[in-house]
């Protein structure tokens, strides 16, 4: 990489730091978490772009491009599911989840599961599974960070990987990542503009989309079909369904995504944020896949297809723009890794250590547990990424399939189905995780033509329904939970404009006042 790239890369970080300090000094920084009594609100557009920026992981910049490069337009099935995923999640579990988690007093998504399905086993299983799979997801970010850093700086991969892991660990242990809404907003704009710039530059290089498609047809016409290279997935609707589902409903199984629903502010803000996020997705999500497809022509015979986007950017963009865009991409990858490690550490210390091993644990002991786990994940991640790095695409698909299969019915039924009980939830989580894991591990997708995500979600849903109904008499849903669910679901004769303007943060006060007023009237 040229010195201009490095200069603009550094310039990007200086600007981001400047924005962060400016935002903090004027008291507008903090985060998206609500303050009681607050006038400190972040608008829907900033909310949307911030969430999009922080959720864009190494997958989008390595996995998506790599898939497009290897399989052509087949990759667009994944993009199609991803575009509407955010709004789908918000519509299905958003508002009710926010209300229910608050009324139950749950701080984390795993704690929420235990409160809705009262059993220590639910928390234990969910906690262990989540820590294990988030560890995998962190691994994908570390590999992406290492590869990106190696390309940007020109230093060898093992050293670049060590630097990437080191930076993430320092952030996690010592703070310093200015996670304020304005810097995330800036980052998301740079990423969007940068990725669109790469697309336009690629199309311009190839004489437009039609010319590019003609050229791809000359290389291998099957790459233009939606069935993959050599029509390898022709007629395999079970695999197509898996590709569509993985980033649409699969997100609902992610604890860090569910946590965002728990912290959501007013439904009206969330709704507008959902619209902005979808518009952003419409432009952003297909772009990395498309760049990967176009890279078949721009960089034929690429040694590592997952580096397609970085390589195309380095080749076609002006050095200054390359520096800025790569800095934004690297920042997004590091930020995602940092968030995932924080989430994993928090689940290990609060949901497992404090809950099951040492209920009287001090803050210092919990911090020690969190840091020890984060360190173990980082060391294992470094070794795996160094010795035999798996593809970022493969890791993300594996982790999302198992998490989605394990938790999707549990989270959805928690808010929508009154009969969903503890044995049903436990059975659903165990069956879903096992089926998806075995399907991936044994490579059954190829022989059955059914994606692990599809079989996992179907089997966990069947388990939830069957076991909940069969055990309804011996393990009924507690009355207080049913009452809270009724409260959360209640609409009644409230004018719709009023419902749209209602503030979910007041749910618990409203419930207590309702009970008090009812008692007085009785």
């Amino acid at each position: 990489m040229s010195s201009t790239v490095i200069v603009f890369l550094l310039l990007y970080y200086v600007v981001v730091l400047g924005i962060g300090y400016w935002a903090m000094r004027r008291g507008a920084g903090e985060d998206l978490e609500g303050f009681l009594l607050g006038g400190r609100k972040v608008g829907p557009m900033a909310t949307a772009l911030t969430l999009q920026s922080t959720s864009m992981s190494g997958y989008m910049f390595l996995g998506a491009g790599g898939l497009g490069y290897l399989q052509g337009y087949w990759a667009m099935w994944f993009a199609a599911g991803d575009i509407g995923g955010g709004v789908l999640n918000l519509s299905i579990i958003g508002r009710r989840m926010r209300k229910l988690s608050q009324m139950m007093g749950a701080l984390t998504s795993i704690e929420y599961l235990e409160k809705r399905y009262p059993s220590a086993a639910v928390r234990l299983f969910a906690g262990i599974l989540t820590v294990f799979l988030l560890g995998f997801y962190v691994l994908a970010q570390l590999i992406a960070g290492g590869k990106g850093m190696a390309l940007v700086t020109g230093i060898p991969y093992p050293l670049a990987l060590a630097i990437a892991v080191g930076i993430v660990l320092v952030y996690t242990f010592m703070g310093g990542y200015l996670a304020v809404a304005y810097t995330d907003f800036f980052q998301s704009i740079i990423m969007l503009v940068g990725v669109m710039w790469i697309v336009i530059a690629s199309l311009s290089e190839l004489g437009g989309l039609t010319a590019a498609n003609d050229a791809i047809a000359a290389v291998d016409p099957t790459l233009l079909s939606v069935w993959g290279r050599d029509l390898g997935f022709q007629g395999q609707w079970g695999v197509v369904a898996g590709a569509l589902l993985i980033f649409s409903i699969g997100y609902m199984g992610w604890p860090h995504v569910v946590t965002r629903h728990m912290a959501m502010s007013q439904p009206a803000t969330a709704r507008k944020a959902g619209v902005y996020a979808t518009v952003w997705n419409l432009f952003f999500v297909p772009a990395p896949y498309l760049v990967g497809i176009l890279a078949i022509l721009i960089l034929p015979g690429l040694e590592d297809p997952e580096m397609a986007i970085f390589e195309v950017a380095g080749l076609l963009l002006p050095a200054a723009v390359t520096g800025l865009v790569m800095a934004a991409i690297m920042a997004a990858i590091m930020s995602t890794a940092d968030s995932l490690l924080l989430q994993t550490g928090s689940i290990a210390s609060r949901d497992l250590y404090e809950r099951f091993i040492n209920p009287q644990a001090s803050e210092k002991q919990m911090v020690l547990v969190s840091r020890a786990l984060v360190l173990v994940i980082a060391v294992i991640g470094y070794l795996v990424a160094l010795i035999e790095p798996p593809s970022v695409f493969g890791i993300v698909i594996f982790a999302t399939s198992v998490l989605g299969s394990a938790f999707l019915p549990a989270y959805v039924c928690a808010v929508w189905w009154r009969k969903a009980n503890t044995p049903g939830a436990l059975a659903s989580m165990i069956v879903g995780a096992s089926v998806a894991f075995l399907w991936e591990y044994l490579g059954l997708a190829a022989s059955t033509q059914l994606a692990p995500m599809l079989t996992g979600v179907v089997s966990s849903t069947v388990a939830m329904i069957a076991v909940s109904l069969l055990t309804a008499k011996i393990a009924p849903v507690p009355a207080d939970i049913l009452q809270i669910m009724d409260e959360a679901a209640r609409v009644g004769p409230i004018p719709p404009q009023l419902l749209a303007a209602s503030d979910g943060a007041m749910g618990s006060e409203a419930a207590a006042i309702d009970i008090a007023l009812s008692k007085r009237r009785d």
Partner: protein
Amino acid sequence: MTEPLYVIEGTVTAECASRQVRDLCDSDALQPAQPIYYPYHAFRAACTVATLIGRQERQLHCLVDAMNGQGATAEPFTTRLRVAAASEQMQPDISPTAAHAVARRTVSHHLGKALRMIAAFDIKLEAEGLVWKQFWVVGSTQYSVLVDSTNGAMHPLRSKAG
């Protein structure tokens, strides 16, 4: 029977609350807004932590819901002594000791998320006693709405105002 309470100062009056709901619902059949006072245990937290970008010191306010024990960080606020009828007050269920533990956990959780780091924060928690927030109950014989007097936020109620 009346009792003096430390009430968090707010700017949303009964008239404002009624107007806000009326404007949204386009209805003239609303009952007059009724006050209700809701208790919180208030805490002030002085937090210090060394980070990569220097020592971070934060002053936070934390309110623990005295009815159900849920904690939340809060904007700085002032209180005013106000006399309220017993029928307008909710009776606290959560003890100050239990609230203290919740406040510590809430502040620690908030700092971890805000600073995005795993650290044992130095938190000095000072209890400021029970404070009350005034809500307005506005509505008709069909529905009623709770309006927060500090920021005008609204939430529908199951009970009818009539």
